[in-house]
């Protein structure tokens, strides 16, 4: 256990009240709970308000392209599986431009923690509709109401074979931190979808609105995150948004399947030229 402020590099400059403050705090708490050294942690971000996180968090970071956090993070994890690799994205990143990467990285079960901060619109670009924007919602890009039906990340994850599917709320930092910590401990791909209000552009899905609409799965009698049918049931509940550890199962991680030796990371291989071995391979062309 470390002090969470150990990971605090700079004070964030997000809008006052932004859900990202809760996410930032939860990430620091999770890292502290696992006592990760900053050099053993890599945070990969996409493009959006969340992308500033790298400036504030003490650790190796990769702030890449919009929607492409997943393949970058997977490349890092496979080359050095000893690293704790956390990818952070927004709903645009994860569920719009990067949806394909999300589904495929999840289905490969790469050992990443994917924190998706869902504020239900594109905030950095001033508030256009995103794939999680409610049907009919008026945004900068949909002045006559959104005509797109929203999609739900955790439901997609369950359908695609996710092995750790959780949803948190940036208004409940302690639980969120615990979910992220569990996700980091999970051997395989962990999705933590986060309901996170945008106080500037989204006047509908506010903290109060979320408090009224969420239900915690741990409060449901007999709920087990190992029960896939039940997980599906709570995810598709029409009125309440399920929050908590929704589903979890054990499946071999991608790195355990493809890497010849997890104790000998690609990152630290000696690249010397092995002439005799290469010549033997070349004999196949004679």
């Amino acid at each position, binding site marked *: 256990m470390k002090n969470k402020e150990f990971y605090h590099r700079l004070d964030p400059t997000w809008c006052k009240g932004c859900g990202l403050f809760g996410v930032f705090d939860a990430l620091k708490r999770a890292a502290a709970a696992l006592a990760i*050294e*900053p*050099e*053993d942690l*890599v945070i*990969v971000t996409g493009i959006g308000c969340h992308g*500033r996180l*790298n*400036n504030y968090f*003490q*650790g*190796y*970071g*990769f*702030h*890449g*392209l919009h929607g*492409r956090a*997943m*393949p*970058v*993070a*997977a*490349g*890092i994890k*496979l*080359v*050095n599986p*000893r*690293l704790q690799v956390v990818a952070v994205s927004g709903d645009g990143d994860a569920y719009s431009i990067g949806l*394909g*990467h999300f*589904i*495929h990285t999840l289905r490969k079960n790469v050992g990443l923690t994917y924190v998706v901060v869902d504020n239900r619109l594109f905030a950095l670009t001033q508030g256009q509709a995103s794939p999680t924007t409610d049907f009919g919602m008026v945004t900068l890009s949909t002045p006559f109401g959104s005509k797109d039906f929203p999609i739900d990340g955790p439901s997609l994850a369950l359908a695609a074979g996710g092995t750790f599917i959780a949803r948190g709320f940036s208004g409940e930092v302690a639980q969120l931190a615990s979910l992220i910590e569990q996700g980091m401990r999970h051997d395989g791909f962990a999705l933590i979808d986060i309901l996170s209000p945008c106080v500037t552009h989204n006047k509908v899905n506010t903290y109060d609105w979320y408090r009224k609409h969420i239900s915690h799965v741990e409060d449901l009698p007999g709920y087990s995150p190992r029960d896939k049918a039940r997980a599906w049931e709570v995810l598709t509940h029409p009125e309440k948004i399920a929050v908590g550890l929704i589903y979890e199962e054990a499946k071999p991680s991608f790195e355990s399947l*493809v*890497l*010849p*030796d997890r104790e*000998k*990371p*690609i*990152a*630290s*291989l000696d*690249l*010397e*030229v092995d*002439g005799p071995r*290469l*010549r033997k*391979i*070349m004999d196949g*062309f*004679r």
Partner: protein
Amino acid sequence: MIKDLAVMIAGRAGDGVLFTGNVLARLLKRHGWEIVTSRDFPSNIRGEATCYTVRASLDKIYGQGDRVNILLAFDCEAILAHLPEMAENGIVFCDGQGVAAPSPEQARGKTFHRLFLRTLAREQFGQEIYKNVIALGALSYVLDLDPLLLDGIISEMFLKRKGEEVVHKNIQAARSGYEKAREITAEKERHPLTRRPDENRILISGDEAIGFGALAAGCRYFAAYPICPASEIWQWLVHYLADFGGAVVQTEDELASLNMALGASFAGARAMTSTSGPGASLMMEAFSLAGMAEIPVVIAHVQRLGPSTGMPTKTQQGDVLQWIFGSHGEFPRIVLAPGTVGECFDLTVGAFNLAEKYQCPVIILTELDMGQDYRTSRAFDFSQVRIDRGKLLTPEVLQNIPDFKRYAITDDGISPRALPSWKNGVHLVESLEHDEKGYRDEDPLNRRRMMEKRMRKLDPAAADLFPPKTWGCQKAEVGFIGFGSTLGAILEAVDELRAKNIASRFLQLRTLWPFPAAEVREFLAESRELFVVEHNFTGELATLIRSQVSPCSEIKSILNYSTRPFTPRDIVEPVLRSRR
């Protein structure tokens, strides 16, 4: 004495044309001849016409010839389709199915034989599939090859996978083909090839040579999406990379391939991806990221015919300017273009060193003809392979650096690099404009300094790059400039012109970017008449030369935007025409 000969195997996709051609190429290589193969095949699996030409020569050759001497056709349509390409005294073997009625004019001078391959295969060996080995036996007789060479190859191919019985049966089939050909052909129809020692040579495709170069250079992470004609790089590497401690990963698309390679490289691997036409377009986004974040990466692009899906199984050189000027923003990049399979290996090794030394993306730009066709080469010399990781620090050195800056502004523009997990090296790799530590910075002065830092990295690179190579006569009126697999046809055009008392030279560009302007300028000044030879419509290399060499003397383009690689004739004829 025969010095140069081409054998074409033709039929329909699914006939085993590829198998037969590959074995014949290996057979002739073991006989000591120089080999270039060429495949003309549709982008489907079964049914459509396909052909495979094996050209063998006593001289070193790099490309296709103009004529076919022996045609082995699995159906009659193939005869009609390819008779126009045949040499005067050509010999045609067909399976004997169907009726082919070539015009007397086309048939003149050639002999035709029926081999009844399928019938023989079915009756004597119980399965039609033996027709291919029977055909190879027949060709062995006609070319007067040692039958034991074919037996050896059959044994290598089948013993491990299929067992002794299959080997024995195939050898019997080869013998029956040999005897059948002896029975039906006249002695004067034979094309006997002298045997030469087959020493220290290999038969390899450009794709395999790139894969081999990557393996030797320490590439340990390869991510790609399947695409014709680049997949063979991956399909070769996938057999070896795990043994060397590395990983090959199939991604969901090319966006992911390059981004994943960048993540892998950031974490410390020598990483690579490969692609072609549409995949390269998808990679343009992350290409720019590699430039901005200064991440070493190698991208092999095996060009195919475009635009769009175009013709995925045909060769072209239409993606040159995309890599040199493409993507958003301005950033340094290196584009290499191998002209031989040996260079596919050497330039790939070089690409990994250049990428790490200059911390930028390096493109190995080749084409389908180089990538998928086989050529003989001197065996690769691994003692020449050096691994230079540039300014990559070590954890020990990093410990003693008081204030590590990943993007430190240095005289040469290249900054020290640390890897995740190394203490004291925590930094951000940033796609936004950033300060020396990697954190976002929108200060105008910082922007200027960072832009200048990145853009000056390649200023002194010329000494490390692969210089152009000059071929042909020392002094010549006619000059050719080209790159990549057109080399073979250009060199033979130089020979043919010399035979017509026209002296010519060829400047083979092996680095397309940074552009070797000084060498090209000098070559232009020394040539009275200059032709840029390239396999595209608009003359991309000529455009590049005009933009980089100023003032530029008059240059003429010899272009080919058909589906087939250049032949020497395609180059000789325009030169002769221009001199009339």
